[in-house]
């Protein structure tokens, strides 16, 4: 899977919408895409028993706190028909030395009521160690 990160003015506008959705404090605007994904993520042994609610809240807090949001061009065959871009963050959580990688989609880009769906979450396995006890 190749990931083409994009960077332009439109990107910044879309990322601002993702941030707005997370900071709205509304469950309608920032949640797991469906129950299947929520239960799969919380049941993933790699996530060490963190519940779906907790991961969502940590992701939300990370974004609201100004954590970096990255935008990627969707080029995976199964998803290319559904979205042009997807978004990721790496949340700094104790117990995950390289952080928790959270994948998101901007479902609705209504500037007043943007909606973001959480698609997946798992520990980051590559990259620098960002957390130490």
């Amino acid at each position: 899977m190749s990931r083409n990160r994009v960077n332009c003015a439109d990107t910044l506008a879309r990322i601002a919408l993702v941030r707005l959705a997370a900071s709205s404090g509304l469950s309608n605007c920032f949640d797991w895409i469906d129950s299947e994904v929520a239960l799969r993520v919380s049941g993933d042994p790699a996530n060490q028993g963190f519940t779906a609610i907790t991961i969502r809240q940590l992701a939300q807090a990370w974004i609201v706190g100004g954590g970096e949001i990255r935008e990627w061009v969707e080029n995976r065959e199964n998803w290319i028909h559904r979205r042009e871009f997807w978004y990721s963050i790496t949340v700094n959580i104790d117990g995950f030395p390289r952080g928790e990688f959270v994948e998101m989609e901007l479902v609705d880009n209504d500037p007043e009521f943007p909606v973001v769906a959480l698609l997946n979450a798992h520990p980051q396995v590559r990259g620098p160690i960002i957390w130490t006890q």
Partner: protein
Amino acid sequence: MDTVNKRPRKCMKCRAGTLAPTIVDYSVKMEHDGRVYPIQADHLEVLRCTNEGCKSEVLPDHSLLRLNELLRLQAGLFSPNEIVAKRSNLGLSQKDFAHLLGVATATVSRWETGAQIQQRVMNDFMRAFFDLHALRVYLMILRGLRQPVAECPLVNLTTNSVTVNTSTSVTVSGGFVRVRAGQPVAQESTRAQDIADMLSYGPGKLSGRLPVRVA
């Protein structure tokens, strides 16, 4: 997330339908720590997409919390409230408890708020910690909070009963024994056991002189 917008919630999956609350008897296989548990939750609220072709479901937070409770029951894990109660009964702070178990304080905090479900091995370790005084003492020695037996040769422990003279009080809290002059103490079997164990592992940690004598 406590706030819910009054606008109808759109289905994030199909982006066409809206999610409508429905009460159902919900069956699901939940995974935890590499095992699968069949969970049955009666009268659970589920948000279902109104678009017939979609069939997407979303679980509101209170339903996810209930499923987590049922998962803990099914897996034989302590509930968050049980962990709080058992830790508090031992007079331990979250920080001290975490230090003795060898985990981060934040981890204990998350177990106690339900934000993180403990692994089975940690649950069993906690169970042993709560049940076995000897393990608590061992961990205190391991973490450098208590002196080992060899450093307290003055105590001759021959029985579980303890005699305390009338000018002494003994309190047991969080596995620590404190001795204070001035107040008599009634014997109590569980405490006597604690005191006997403490004396055997290190009276150097007792405050003051040792007017406590093992009969």
